[in-house]
C-alpha cells in the first residue's frame, strides 16, 4: 500500500501522482492521510486503483472519476463525485449537496445522509444512500438510479427525464413532472443487485419507485403552470 500525507506533500503532488497511475499499475492501493476537508482530492483519476481517504473531504472529491474506487472514511463536501464516468465512491459519513452531480456512470454509496440536490442532472450514475436525502434531489436527472433507504426531502425528481428513484421511506413532496411508478420484477432484481453491491441494509420489496411522468418533454403552454 502507498501512503500519502496530504498536509505534508500537498494537493498537486497527490493528484499528479494518482493521475499518473495507468491501468497496468502495480500500486493499486493508496492511503491519503490528513485530508482535513481539502478540496479536489483524487480528481480526474483514470486507473483501477483504490484510494482510501482517512478523514473528511471538501468540495469535489473524486470529481470526474473513471475506474478508481475512492473510499472516504469521514464525511464528504459538496459536489463529491461530480461528473463521475465509472468506478466507485464510498462515503462512510454524510455527503453534502450536489452529490454525484451530472455523473455519467459508476456507483456512489453514502453510509450516512446526503444533502440537497443529491444526483442533480445525473446522467447514468447509480447513487445509494443509507440515510435520508435533502430537497431538490435528482433535479433534471437524465438517467441512472437514485436509491434512498431513508426519506427524501421536498421536490424529489423535479423536471426529471429518464432517471429512476427508489425510496424506502417517505417522500416529503414530488417535484414537477415526477410521479410514483409501479414496481415491476426487473426493479426488484435491480435493487437486489445494487443493495448487495453497496452493502447497505435494506430489502428490495420495501422501496417505492418514482420517475418522470413525461408530460413536460415537449413544451406545451398549458403545462407552464407546472413550473
Amino acid at each position, binding site marked *: 500500500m502507498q501512503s500519502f500525507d496530504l498536509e505534508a506533500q500537498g494537493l498537486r503532488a497527490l493528484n499528479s501522482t494518482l493521475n499518473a497511475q495507468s491501468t497496468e499499475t502495480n500500486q493499486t492501493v493508496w492511503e491519503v492521510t490528513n485530508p482535513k476537508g481539502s478540496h479536489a482530492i483524487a480528481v480526474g483519476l483514470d486507473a483501477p486503483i483504490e484510494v482510501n481517504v482517512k478523514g473528511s473531504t471538501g468540495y469535489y472529491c473524486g470529481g470526474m472519476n473513471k475506474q478508481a474506487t475512492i473510499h472516504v472514511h469521514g464525511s464528504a463536501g459538496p459536489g463529491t463525485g461530480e461528473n463521475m464516468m465509472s468506478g466507485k465512491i464510498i462515503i462512510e459519513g454524510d455527503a453534502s449537496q450536489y452529490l454525484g452531480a451530472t455523473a*455519467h456512470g459508476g456507483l456512489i454509496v453514502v453510509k450516512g445522509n446526503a444533502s440537497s440536490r443529491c444526483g442533480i442532472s445525473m446522467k447514468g450514475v447509480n447513487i445509494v444512500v443509507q440515510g435520508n436525502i435533502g430537497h431538490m434531489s435528482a433535479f433534471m436527472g437524465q438517467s441512472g438510479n437514485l436509491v434512498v433507504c431513508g426519506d427524501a426531502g421536498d421536490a424529489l425528481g423535479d423536471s426529471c427525464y429518464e432517471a429512476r428513484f427508489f425510496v424506502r421511506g417517505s417522500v416529503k413532496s414530488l417535484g414537477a413532472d415526477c410521479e410514483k411508478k409501479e414496481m415491476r420484477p426487473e426493479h426488484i432484481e435491480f435493487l437486489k443487485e445494487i443493495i448487495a453491491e453497496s452493502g447497505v441494509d435494506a430489502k428490495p420489496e420495501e422501496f417505492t419507485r418514482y420517475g418522470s411522468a413525461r408530460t413536460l*418533454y415537449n413544451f406545451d403552454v398549458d403545462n407552464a403552470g407546472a413550473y
Partner: protein
Amino acid sequence: MNSHDDKGIPHTTPRQSATFSADVNSDIRRAAATGIYDIRGGGAKRKVPSFDDLLFMGASISRYPLEGYREKCDTSVTIGGLHASNPIHLDIPITIAGMSFGALSGPAKEALGRGASMAGTSTTTGDGGMTPEERGHSNKLVYQYLPSRYGMNPDDLRKADAIEIVVGQGAKPGGGGMLLGQKISDRVAGMRNLPKGIDQRSACRHPDWTGPDDLEIKILELREITGWKVPIYVKVAGARPYYDVTLAVKAGADAIVLDGMQGGTAATQDVFIEHVGQPTLAIIRPAVQALQDLGMHRKVQLILSGGIRSGADVAKAMALGADAVAIGTAALIALGDNDPKYEAEYNALGTTSGAYDDWHEGKDPAGITTQDPELMKRFDPIEGGRRLKNYLKVMTLEAQTIARACGKNHLHNLEPEDLVALTMEAAAMAKVPLCGTDWYPGKPNTSY
C-alpha cells in the same frame, strides 16, 4: 382613398402609432394566436449604442502614422499565461465564439475549425460537447464547461487547449437554453444522454457550484484534473461587468470572455434577447476598469464579444482595452447563413434573408443551423472554412489599417485616446470625448 369625406371635410393623413408599431402589433397577434412566447436565435436586433458611434481620429502633426503594408503592425495575442503552463498563442485577436454541435450541424462546426485554424486563431465548443470533426480541424480548441454539462467528460476536457467556464451569455444573462425536439437527432441525443426528439433544457446555473467562492474551488478542481496546463476562461454576460470581472479574477480565471447583448444564442425567448443585458459598448470600460483596479489588465486577458462585425469593431474593442474579441453571428454569415441566394426558401419560411432567426426549428436553407441530413448536404465545410478564413483575414487587415493610421505597431497599442464619440451616449459609455469637444458625460473634475 378619397381625400375628403362626403361632407367635403379633408381626411387627416393616417398615422401609425410609434408605440403600437407594425412589429409590435404582429407580436401581439402572434401571441394571441399561439399562447406561447416567441423563441428565436441570434442576438438583440434593436438599435443600441455601438462601436459605430465611435471614430478613430487617425494621425496628425502630434501623432505620426505607420506605412500601410510596409511597417509592421503585430496582431498576435497570448491568452492564459497567468496560471497555465501552456497558454494559447494566437496570430490574430479574433476568436470564434462558443456555438454548440446540436444548434449547428457537424459540417458547420468543422468549417469553423478549418477557417479558424487557417487564420491562426481558436474556435470554441458549445452546449453539447466536443465532436471529433471539430477537434480534428481546430488547431486551438476552447472547451466550454456549461451548466448542462451535456457531453462533458474528462477525456474531452483533457483534449482541450483551454477551458471556458460559461456563467452567462450576452443574449440571455441569467437564462438557460432550449434545444427543441426537432433538432434532437440520434447523434445529438446520444451525446447529451437524453431520448431523441424531446426538448432539451440547458440549465441556467451550474449544478455543483454557486457564487464566487465556489467558482474558485471549481477552477481549482479543473486545474487539478488538467494538470494546471491549459488556461481557464470564465465567460460572463454583460450584466454587471465591473463586479463580475472582479469576482472572476478573484476566483482565479486566466481570461474573461465578456459578451454583450448583441451576442447571439441558438434559441431563447425574444423578450429575453431584447430586454435583458447591456450593449457591448457599455460593458467594456467597466470590465477594463475592474482589471486595472486589480492590477490585472493585460495579465488576465479580456475577450469581448457581441456584435463584432469588422476590423473597425476589432480595433475599437482593442482601443478600449480588450485583448481579443470573439465572433459568432458574423462567422455564421461568413459561412453562408442568411445568404440572399436562398431568398425564395426564406420567403417560404415566412421571412427574408438577413432576418431569418428561427434557427431552433432546424429548417435552415443554408444547411448550417440544422440537423436535417438533406439540408446539411448543401453546406460544404471546406468551402465554408475557406470563406471564414478570408473573412478573418479581412477583419485583421482592416484593424491593422486603422492601427497603422493611428501610429501603432501592435493592435494592443491602440488606446482610448485614439477615439472620439459621435453621440453623447457613446461618449458616456466609452468614456471618450464627444466629437469636437474634450468632454464626455461623467468625466471627472468637469462642471459641465
